């Protein structure tokens, strides 16, 4: 049933044949698409000024289709939960990071953090935004871990968890508060849209960054074992 372990050449050729036909079909389908299709860009540009940001992508991400983004933060958090549910951190092997890495990281990390915040800010008008910023932040974190740095015991418990869920919870909080004001979930009033988006993005950036780092280290911190 399960082809994984079945490497007979016949099966190979069969598979190749199938895939080729499939490719052909898809290519044909693609080529049959109209050459010009504006998609939704028109509607987007139309409503851009209402969205509170100039960058259309950010507008879509955090306003028009903010709900997607919201759920997707959920996915990210879920991945972390799943990883943590699988067990604790593999033992950190204490290797001396080495001169280059040490000095380099010392130099790089501030820059990375700076850059993250820049991306976050610029996201409103130009390419950039929470995810880019978050991943840069994560890069910094990864560097830290590579250099053998470990999170302070005290911070490993609740504080860490709060930081992890900050993005999602603030996102939701904003949505719900708006509902309390009689609007729909995540329906920003144009006047404050910019501020709200920035707030959400800031929180998201932090959470994303930390989550990615946590994912990188691949297990829940020791202190979680009670």
């Amino acid at each position, binding site marked *: 049933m399960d082809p994984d*372990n079945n490497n007979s050449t016949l099966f190979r050729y069969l598979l190749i044949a199938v895939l080729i036909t499939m*490719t052909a079909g898809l290519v044909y389908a693609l080529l049959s*698409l109209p050459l010009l299709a504006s998609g939704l860009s028109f509607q987007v540009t139309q409503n851009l000024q209402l969205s509170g940001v100039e960058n259309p*992508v950010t507008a*879509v*991400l955090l306003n028009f289709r903010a709900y*997607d983004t919201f759920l997707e933060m959920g996915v990210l958090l879920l991945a972390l939960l799943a990883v943590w549910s699988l067990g604790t951190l*593999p033992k950190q092997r204490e290797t001396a990071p080495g001169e280059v890495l040490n000095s380099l990281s010392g130099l790089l990390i501030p820059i990375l953090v700076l850059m993250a915040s820049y991306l976050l800010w610029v996201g409103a008008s130009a390419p950039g935004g929470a995810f880019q910023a978050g991943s840069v932040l994560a890069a910094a974190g990864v560097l830290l871990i590579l250099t053998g740095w470990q999170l302070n015991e005290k911070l490993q418990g609740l504080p860490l968890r709060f930081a992890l869920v900050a993005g999602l919870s603030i996102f939701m909080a904003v949505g719900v508060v708006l509902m309390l004001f009689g609007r729909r979930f995540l329906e920003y009033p144009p006047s404050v849209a910019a501020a709200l988006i920035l707030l959400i993005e800031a929180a998201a950036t932090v959470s994303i960054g930390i989550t990615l780092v946590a994912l990188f280290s691949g297990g829940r911190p020791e202190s979680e074992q009670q």
Partner: protein
Amino acid sequence: MSAVFVYSLVGIGLFNLGLYALIIYPHLLRKILAVNIMGSGVFLVLVALAGRTASGVPDPVPHAMVITGIVVAVSATALALVLMLRVSAATGQPELPEEK
């Protein structure tokens, strides 16, 4: 034939290559990579086709979708990798065990 379609066709190619690798190779790491390649293929199609606007300014919605998709992919990959480590720790080899 415009660059748009070249890119999107490359995307299709990646998708199928990934599928092939996913089915053929027993090693889990390769399987995970294969899935990622398939994903990139899909994203490539998604973004490339967004460039078919008259104005030349690409349609932003697909870009947003791709970002969402990437984050999902990253999360999934992370989970997959950790799971792989656990499996190989439990079974001693980084491959799918026989069904039980």
